[in-house]
């Protein structure tokens, strides 16, 4: 028996949230009394395998092939199934990234295994996995219990702390993979890296978000939001109202029909705080609101507030942070 965690990579770089899952996997494997297996798939795997070994694994399974350079569902799901069988894994975890959610689901469906997508907490109860999920867009929590021998979950980024690296452990074993290019049915014909230098919203420790309060001069308003975000090394978010008004692209939207975020610090600038937005950012630890309107609902959820015009407050705040953070 084993507990298996897929370590996702893109362009030979590991996806950071997978280490959070691997760290939690160490604890769950101990609770289950099983070994911990990491699976690494790609064209270049050596560096990622070494990092995986620093997080307390018992074994790393590796599938290395030039044809695996880019994620393709049929190739990756075949290898994940092979790894589950090889390691005798009963609990299978991925990060709930776009690919992690898809791959975990495809394998669960194929194996008729129970699946908990986008889980926010995990525990072992009577030898089986129990996952906690936020449903109804964050308004209801439920435990997901499993009736199947194999239990699969994808884990929402930032649900668990980043583990501390220690001396390398575990064996490394290459899986014997054969890739039938014709059977894959898809090929990636172009890739484009966007947002280089930008911090990903769902992984962000700090988020600065802008809303309709920028309406008088949206371009300048979001430039000021971006200045503060850059100063703090933060990701930039937005309310739906700001996205719908065309001030900023959809990828920045936080809320029920946007991204769900759990920052350590969330600074809402000129955001009134519609319930859909509050549902998307309410899991953040410390919330700061800057708004002209003292009656704005955001002040009902924030820990600190400044009542004032964002066009005056943001430059002062950014300057003060620059001074203090050096």
């Amino acid at each position, binding site marked *: 028996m084993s507990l298996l965690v897929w370590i996702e990579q893109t362009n030979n770089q590991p996806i950071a949230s997978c280490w959070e899952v691997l760290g939690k996997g160490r604890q769950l494997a101990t609770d289950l009394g099983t070994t911990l297996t990491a699976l690494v798939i790609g064209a270049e795997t050596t560096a990622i395998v070494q990092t995986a070994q620093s997080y307390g694994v018992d074994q790393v399974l590796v599938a290395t092939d030039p044809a695996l350079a880019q994620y393709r569902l049929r190739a990756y799901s075949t290898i994940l199934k092979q790894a589950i069988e090889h390691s005798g894994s009963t609990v299978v975890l991925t990060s709930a990234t776009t690919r992690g959610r898809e791959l975990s689901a495809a394998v669960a469906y194929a194996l008729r295994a129970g699946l*908990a997508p986008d889980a926010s907490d995990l525990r072992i109860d009577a030898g089986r996995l129990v996952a906690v999920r936020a449903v109804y867009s964050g308004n209801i929590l439920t435990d997901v219990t499993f009736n199947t021998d194999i239990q699969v979950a994808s884990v929402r980024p930032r649900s668990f702390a980043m583990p501390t690296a220690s001396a390398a452990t575990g064996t490394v074993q290459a899986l014997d993979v054969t890739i039938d290019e014709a059977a894959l049915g898809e090929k990636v014909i172009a890739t484009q890296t966007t947002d280089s230098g930008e911090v990903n919203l769902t992984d962000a420790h700090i988020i600065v978000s802008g809303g309709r309060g920028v309406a008088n001069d949206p371009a300048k308003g979001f430039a000021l939001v971006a200045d503060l975000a850059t100063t703090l090394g933060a990701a930039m978010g937005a309310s739906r109202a700001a996205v719908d008004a065309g001030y900023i692209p959809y990828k920045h939207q936080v809320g*029920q029909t946007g991204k769900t975020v759990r920052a350590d610090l969330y600074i809402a600038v000129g955001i009134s705080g519609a319930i859909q937005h509050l549902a998307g950012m309410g899991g953040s630890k410390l919330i700061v609101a800057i708004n002209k309107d003292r009656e704005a609902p955001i002040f009902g959820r924030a820990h600190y507030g400044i009542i004032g015009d964002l066009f005056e*407050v943001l430059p002062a*705040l950014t300057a003060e942070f620059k001074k203090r953070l050096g």
Partner: protein
Amino acid sequence: MKVVVLLKQTPDTAELPKVSAAEVQSGAINATMVINPWDEFAAEEAILLEDRFGAETLAISLGAASAVDALKHALAMGIGAAILVDNRGVQDGDLWTVAAILAAAVKAQGAVDIVLAGKQSVDDNSGVTFVGVATELGYQLLTNVVKIVEIADGKVIAERLVEGGQETVECRLPAVISVSKEINDPRYPSFMGIRKANKAQIPTVTPQELGLTLGQPQTQWTNIRKPEVRQTQIQIIEGATVQEKATKLVDLLLAEKVI
């Protein structure tokens, strides 16, 4: 070319905070029900495929009798036909059964080239039903698609968003495609569309008629509850000048050790 769009009826997002644990437990949600907002993008894309490639379009929903309203919304937008699949006996979180039923409903339509779905539902938030449908049907799967570039020679070329980038993928048909919000701007139903939709006959089929027997689910939801309401006491930063307020806030945030 035949395009099927999968739709779900969900509570209006503005009413989700009012949904109680007891309502979720019983399945009787007391809220205004609408077409799942993410699915409107899938319906719109199906209509655009009809415009571009002369596709025949059909909407399928698994739901209660009231879900015909979501299907009528799609018909009013311009989808060609609709079928409701009766969801009695299907439990919340029974992801495999939901996917198996929808896959069987698609299969019953004969040769289907593309199945479109929204990114996730605003109630179950699982975002995996389309993965199960593709797995069950043995179709290719493309998720998080933001642009269907071309369909020709039994292949689709599409752009999809993934963490940190975007990729252009060539994929053989038939395929299940989940779409993201960037793909289009869903149209509002026209007056004529609404009239036509109201007159439309929407057949209902049961999972049994599709040849399925409902078995034991792989997972279940237990301990359904409302999240703890975190008591927050706001501290409004006072000060004579903006500069003074900014300094005080920076002091507090540095003391919180979150930066």
